[in-house]
């Protein structure tokens, strides 16, 4: 089932048009627009405070917007009449701090939303959850609590938890920022596999090597606007805007 009847898979799965967002007097998004096609991997990069995280939080309506429009599968996300549940079935999200439910085991974390929200059959959900845990290479950790897992393992459980809802789009909000360098890789590998499977992924990230390798399209944001965007080759080697060049020179 798709969110809007008028949408066809050849249209952008996520379409952001001239979005403005303020926290009080502070305007953090000043007219952002982008179209994301099904199966694309998008990386949003930029300095801290440039509004990257806010932008992807607006896509699944964790934050509201002041003006503009965001559609997922043709459905306006910020339509007050929209049942948020429908949106959240379509859009999965993974957070910087994992945000697992600490009182539930890894398996329970993955199973909870399909059971409670989608009211699916328990045996089916469990089978799917076990498969997902295997997919993120955490076999044997099903019965461990988040507190017993490393940061990288917790983040992979969080990815599996999101995937259990069988979303069409996945949002990743600086998912490796809180991890030890040696566990960053295991999480990135998981995301890479997901992208290879054809999942539409929107990532806010500081992992430039990863962005270069996996992204179909890169957006560079600064102070609430998109400064520059393009395919990784063009973006990393031939950045035109001085702000992009400065940012890249600092981190590459």
């Amino acid at each position: 089932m798709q969110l809007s009847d008028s949408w066809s898979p050849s249209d952008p799965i996520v379409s952001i048009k001239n979005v403005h967002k303020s926290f009080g007097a502070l305007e953090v998004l000043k007219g952002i627009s982008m179209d994301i096609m099904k199966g694309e991997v998008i990386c949003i990069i930029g300095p801290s405070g440039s509004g990257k995280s806010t932008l992807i939080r607006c896509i699944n309506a964790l934050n509201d917007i002041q003006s503009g429009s965001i559609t997922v599968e043709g459905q306006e996300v910020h339509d007050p009449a929209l049942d948020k549940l429908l949106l959240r079935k379509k859009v999965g999200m993974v957070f910087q701090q994992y945000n697992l439910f600490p009182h539930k085991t890894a398996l329970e974390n993955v199973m909870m939303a399909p059971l409670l929200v989608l009211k699916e059959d328990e045996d089916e959900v469990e089978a799917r959850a076990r498969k997902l845990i295997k997919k993120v290479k955490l076999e044997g950790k099903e019965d461990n609590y988040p507190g017993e897992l490393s940061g990288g393992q917790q983040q992979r459980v969080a990815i599996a938890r999101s995937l259990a809802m069988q979303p069409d789009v996945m949002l990743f909000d600086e998912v490796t920022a809180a991890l030890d360098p040696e566990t960053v890789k295991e999480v990135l590998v998981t995301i890479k596999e997901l992208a290879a499977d054809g999942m539409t992924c929107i990532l806010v990230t500081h992992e430039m090597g990863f962005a270069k390798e996996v992204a179909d399209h890169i957006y560079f944001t600064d102070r609430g606007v998109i400064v520059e965007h393009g395919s990784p080759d063009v973006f990393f080697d031939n950045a035109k805007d001085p702000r992009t060049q400065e940012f890249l020179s600092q981190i590459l």
Partner: protein
Amino acid sequence: MLDLFTEFFRQVAEENPRWNFIFFYQEIQAGKIWKGIQYTLLLAVCCVVSSMVIGVLGAWLQRSKSMLVRASVQGYIQLFRNTPPFVQLLFFYFALGQLTPTYSPDGWLEIPIISNVGWAVISLSLFAGAFNVEIFRSGIEAVPDSTQEAAEALGFSKLQTYRYIVFPLAFRISLPALNNNLVNLVKTTTQAFAIAVPELLYQCVVIWNDYPSAQYPTMLLLFVVYVSMVAVLVFGMSRWETALRIPGYDH
């Protein structure tokens, strides 16, 4: 064996005029003590359970969108936390008790629909409940917003988030403080004595009014019973705490 026991205390009473453990050898007095213990337990259990229900409900209502609801909960907390429980009890029984309807089973006697035991349970539950709301509220505040946000992003409704995520975590965080408040509550049930609830203190006073020689022993008995009751409560609560402990979780 039992004869030996009663004989011993009869002997003690004869030899020491101030140490008349009369409830150990006179069945009527033993019966009063037993009845008193039953009423004390009844009060304790009813008040503990309903004050916890009030606490959970109040903490839930404090998250309400309506200002009026939040202000009412706040008003309730301020009133019941900042006035003496004894005064509350007297107010409920003597003031509100006058206003409650009565029924008359024999067409002669007027019996109020809420008995003194009922008023004691209501008043003490509201008193302890006010503290429990605050205890649960601080537990809820200790649950990170980001955890709730994750539930929200997975499509949980507000009620589901509260029931499956916030409450179980907040409850664990609240248990030690809850434990303290419930211990206090169990001890405060003795105040029901003032409105003639036949609980343990009431029965003890009845006994030592009849037998002044039994005053020290009944006081001693009071201490022993309350120490044991609280010990059982604390033991139960700490077992509960252990059972709810999450491996690898700091709280």
